[in-house]
């Protein structure tokens, strides 16, 4: 039984739904700027206007769809000539004082105003009066600059700080066409650990990330769905990196600049239609925005034996011999390992079960100075993505070496080598350049999350998947392959020895 009609088609609506919600759910697009599924209704952009046909020959009326409750049997038109005309007028108004500087705007290419203008207006400006001047490049915080001329005063960012991050850090000052978005007080927006979401929320190019300002055009980039490893929440994120065909090959660009660089990180739902894909709503914290800094530290690319460079197969062979000869080996499992890698590690442990192997899950990363520890929105105190997955396989016992431990396999970071049992030999699997790498008896460089596919089990037990953005460097191994190789050799050694 259809509840109401959109353009003559029967559409179902749940109780309390607005016309906008029901129409979007039914696949009928109504344009909007200020409306957002996760924020309150502001109804100020007026572009979602629809026509409601009068009943029994009564006159039709128009109003905004985002604030219109569905009533049984109502007949809504989203594309009638009257609606088209009103929409055109509203878009004329919105563009009246907009600088239309798309050529130098970071938002160009993913801008709602551009899209709606081309789809619903397309006319040149009807105004011949000078545009209103406003402030540009206003630093709202250490991370965000604001261009008030581009701002269309949709108030999404203001509502975000009131309703989601609850810092009340932003507001609109003054009135009329001189209204300006401003930070409530100096530094208020700096204290908002979710501030960068307003960049995604901004339908135009008014709120811009300093880190991404004038870096690249978005149409050179592609997004890869990934998971933020910053804490146990495991928020889904989009990692934006250059499409292969748009790599910069000129010599003036350094290797670091052009290859394997994460240009920016966004929440997976840059547009609200994709909100359903997200694990935890369309928000991510600022730590997640900066996750590139986890991966873009100097990489370890050279396998080593006691600090001397060696080929990968030699390092693997050395590790195999160490493990095979161990009387009491121990394995320190990385809480940054994917479930697939952990499964491979578990197979290695199973092969070793007869001889006995001590397995501990270690916390690879602790909260850094100044980093928010935990809050009641997203941020969790455990700063590792897969502690839950690792502990499900290997238990939650703290690292405590048994007497006589003679070989320790350390996987990942966060272990102080001073804590090693006296005289124990070490196999180290690490992705980054660290002094300990040279001290290990066998050092094998491994890949990072952006170079492989996999999944984490986040704090609530859900499995979140990530896809590779880049190829791994040739000289490093995937930890999964290392464990497979070691497991085979252990099995082989046991078989051979027995």
């Amino acid at each position: 039984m259809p509840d109401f009609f959109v353009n003559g088609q029967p559409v179902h609506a749940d109780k309390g739904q607005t016309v906008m919600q029901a129409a979007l759910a039914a696949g009928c697009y109504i344009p909007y700027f200020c409306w957002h599924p996760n924020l309150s209704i502001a109804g100020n952009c007026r572009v979602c206007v629809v026509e409601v046909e009068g009943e029994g020959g009564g006159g039709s009326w128009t109003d905004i769809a985002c604030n219109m409750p569905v009533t049984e049997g109502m007949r809504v038109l989203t594309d009638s000539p009257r609606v088209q005309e009103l929409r055109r007028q509203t878009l004329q108004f919105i563009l009246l004082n907009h600088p239309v500087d798309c050529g130098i705007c970071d938002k160009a290419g993913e801008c709602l105003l551009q899209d709606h203008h081309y789809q619903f207006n397309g006319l040149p400006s009807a105004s011949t009066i000078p545009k209103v001047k406003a402030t540009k490049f206003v630093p709202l915080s250490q991370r965000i600059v604001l261009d008030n001329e581009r701002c269309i005063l949709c108030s999404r960012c203001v509502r975000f700080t009131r309703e989601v991050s609850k810092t009340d850090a932003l507001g609109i000052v003054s009135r009329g066409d001189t209204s300006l978005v401003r930070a409530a007080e100096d530094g208020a927006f700096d204290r908002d650990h979710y501030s960068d979401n307003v960049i995604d929320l901004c339908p135009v190019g008014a709120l811009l990330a300093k880190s991404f300002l004038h870096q690249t055009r978005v149409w050179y980039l592609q997004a890869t769905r990934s998971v933020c490893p910053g804490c146990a929440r495991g928020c889904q994120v989009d990692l934006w990196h250059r499409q292969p065909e748009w790599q910069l090959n000129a010599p003036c660009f350094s290797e670091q600049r052009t290859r394997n660089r994460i240009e920016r990180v966004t929440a997976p739902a840059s547009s609200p239609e994709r909100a359903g894909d997200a694990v935890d709503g369309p928000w991510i914290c600022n730590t997640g925005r900066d996750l590139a800094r986890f991966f873009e530290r100097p990489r370890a690319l050279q396998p080593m034996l006691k600090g001397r460079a060696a080929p990968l197969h030699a390092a693997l062979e050395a590790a195999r011999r160490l493990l095979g000869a161990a009387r009491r080996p121990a394995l320190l499992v990385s809480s940054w390992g994917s479930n697939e890698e952990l499964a491979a590690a578990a197979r290695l442990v199973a092969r070793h079960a007869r001889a006995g192997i001590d397995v501990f899950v270690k916390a690879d990363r602790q909260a850094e100075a100044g980093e928010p520890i935990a809050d009641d929105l997203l941020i969790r105190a455990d700063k590792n993505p897969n502690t839950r997955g690792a502990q499900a396989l290997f238990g939650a016992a703290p690292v405590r070496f048994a007497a006589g431990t003679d070989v320790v396999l350390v996987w990942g970071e966060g272990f102080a080598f001073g804590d090693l049992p006296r005289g124990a030999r070490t196999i180290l699997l690490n992705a980054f350049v660290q002094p300990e790498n040279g001290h290990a008896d066998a050092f094998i460089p491994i890949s990072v999350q952006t170079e492989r596919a996999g999944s984490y089990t986040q704090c609530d037990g859900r499995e979140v998947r990530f896809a590779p953005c880049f190829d791994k460097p040739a000289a490093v191994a995937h930890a999964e392959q290392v464990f497979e190789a070691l497991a085979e050799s252990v099995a082989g050694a046991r078989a051979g020895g027995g």
Partner: protein
Amino acid sequence: MPGRQLIMNFPVTATSHRLADYRARGGYQTLAKALQSMRPEDITKEVTASGLLGHGGAAFPVGRKWAVVNLNDGQPHYLCANADEGEPGTFKDRWILEHAPHLLLESMLIASYALQVRHAFVYIRGEFDLPYRRLQYAVEEAYAAGYFGTGILGSDFACDLVVYRGAGSYVCGEASALITSIEGKKGLPRNRPPRLTVRGLYQRPTVINNVETLANVTGIVRDGAEAFKRVGIARSPGTQLVSISGHLRRPGIYEVEYGYPVVRFIDEDCGGILDGRRLKCIVPGGISTKVLTAEEIADLTYDHKAFEKKGSQLGSGGMIAIAEGTCMVRLLQVMLRFYHHESCGQCTPCREGMGWLHRTIDRIVAGDGRREDIDTLIRVSEANDGTTICGMGDAAGYATVGILAKYRDEFEHWIEHKRSKFDGVLDVAQAAREPADA
């Protein structure tokens, strides 16, 4: 006197606004009668039967607004008197606040009883000084006499009143912006639905009435709906306080009985136009209503239907008489400067449209106008009609379209000749020096 009087029916003296004088005129006896002998719903029934229309501008039937409030819904209700009299040309409520504040307070007490309101508010315009002091003084007098607080007049009815001063925004006279302002937020209008009588102040059912509307309630409850309906005419019962200004010999505030001839009001009661000139047009009720030419009002009576038939409204009763020789281009420029300045900037059509209108008329007046500018003014005005959150966008559009439809030639003349069709302006200063009755 333009007809019978319901509110300005006592001589104004140095003490006529005080509680003692008000009591001597029979004040607060109606409250006692209501509390002792009437149920809340009886009062609403009486007000509905009286056919009282809102005096703030929209002329919405008061009884219908009150009837929406469910007395038994178990949640607090609020009553707000809208004393944010900001419509240019309107200054009628200030007369009530200055000279009959107790009439307003008694009416609000009766209305609070009818709507089961525990906390009532008066949102008073920030620029009002004497009206504010008189009202505040009256509130203190009423509290001291036991008309507010708990156990009012020995009944179990309790009511408190807060006088809230605005900060000078025109939009805060709009009901939803007004309550948002009372809540301590920036005075921005809200989207409907929900209606304010369903979810208003602090998300509770709220009734907001104009000061003059509320001031009529005491009389209706005291004398009954039938007596009220005998004043005025059937379709517009009662009276309207008209604040008339402009090129008149005797501008000021008059209580006009509905159905009174407009020309007679202007020529006889207000003494006619200054300097013996002819009337050009009137702004009927605040600048948001469409102007009516002298010909259009020739045999017009002062009531809602008659003005609607001529394509205008009574509005808030702020009438402006404009004499022959006044330049409508400059008049519209002043109006649009006002609307541009007062647009709250929340929703798109008004925020951008008011600036567009203002800058366009400024350019015309500066002598750089283009022929298509007149059509731009009309198009922008019409694009504001019914597309904004509150009525302000519509209002500016009505004013602009109203003037352009009737005086387009003056705009074309200015664009072509880069100056006004009327050389010089009406010398009001000289005219005012003449004795009024000359």
